[in-house]
């Protein structure tokens, strides 16, 4: 997954958590990068018509951005579910984050042929727990 898609996914999750535009600070926390890096990338994504940015409020995905964010989150969900169900990795969140920049969506789609992923994916992803609510390893939903 490339850097732009990782940002779009983070904006999507931040918007769900904040129920509104994603603030620079939240995105910097999710992505573990500096606020300056976030602002620079938001500008690039805005130029490409994927994000709208409102000063002092934050970033929101356009329809095109939302579609790409959905696909990126699906790819991430495949990686997490694969790590838990096939490789039985306990620290699956940290490992999925470390692997997502190296695993392409075509590779994830092939891994998807051996995992049982819910039809509503990625809507069942819980941003607070950083995993799919249907994944037993995700723990109880509050």
């Amino acid at each position, binding site marked *: 997954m490339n850097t732009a898609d990782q940002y779009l996914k983070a904006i999507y999750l931040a918007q769900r958590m904040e129920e509104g535009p994603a603030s620079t600070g939240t995105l910097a926390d999710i992505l*573990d*990068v500096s606020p300056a890096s976030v602002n620079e990338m938001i500008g690039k994504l805005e130029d490409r018509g994927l994000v709208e940015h409102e000063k002092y409020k934050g970033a929101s995905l356009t329809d095109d951005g939302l579609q790409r964010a959905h696909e990126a989150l699906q790819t991430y969900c495949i990686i997490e579910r694969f790590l838990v169900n096939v*490789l039985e990795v306990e620290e699956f969140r940290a490992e999925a984050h470390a692997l997502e920049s*190296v*695993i*392409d969506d*075509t590779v994830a789609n092939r891994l998807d042929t*051996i*995992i*049982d992923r819910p039809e509503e994916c990625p809507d069942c992803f819980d941003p607070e727990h950083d995993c799919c609510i249907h994944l037993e390893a995700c723990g109880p939903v509050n």
Partner: protein
Amino acid sequence: MSLGQRVSSDHQLARLLQIGVVLEEVVESRAAHHLESLPAEKRDAVDEEVRELLVEANEESADHRERLEALIDDLDAETVAYEEINALVDAQYGPPEDTDGVLYDQLCNEETAYKFYDDLIDAVEASDTEFALDRDRLLETLYDIREEEKDGAEEVTEIMEHRA
């Protein structure tokens, strides 16, 4: 979250090689399933060229898997047994409608594997981590396998083109 595309530890390298093994096992299993899934009369109609392709794909994936497993051994990690992946493929398998579908799936297999090794090579080359295994041996193995995946994709494409 690391936004950089590089392999930064033995652990991460082992995990990526494990994923490579699983991808090879999926190819191996799907090739076997494709042949078995066709009804007897259609199985006879699968021409020799396609049958050979599936048998070759199956053997090549087994060979790639063994070479990856040898690397993983040096990292003190384990791999998922073929039987386990075969069972997972079995549980989710939907057979292609016809021979063209089989070839298309085989092309996806080869292209996906090529992309995986290509990205992995980039990620290893972008890293200055000292791995527990010899970097040259690691890269040589990955270059070889990537080349064979590329040849495999070209072979399927040629068969698809002259069948069209």
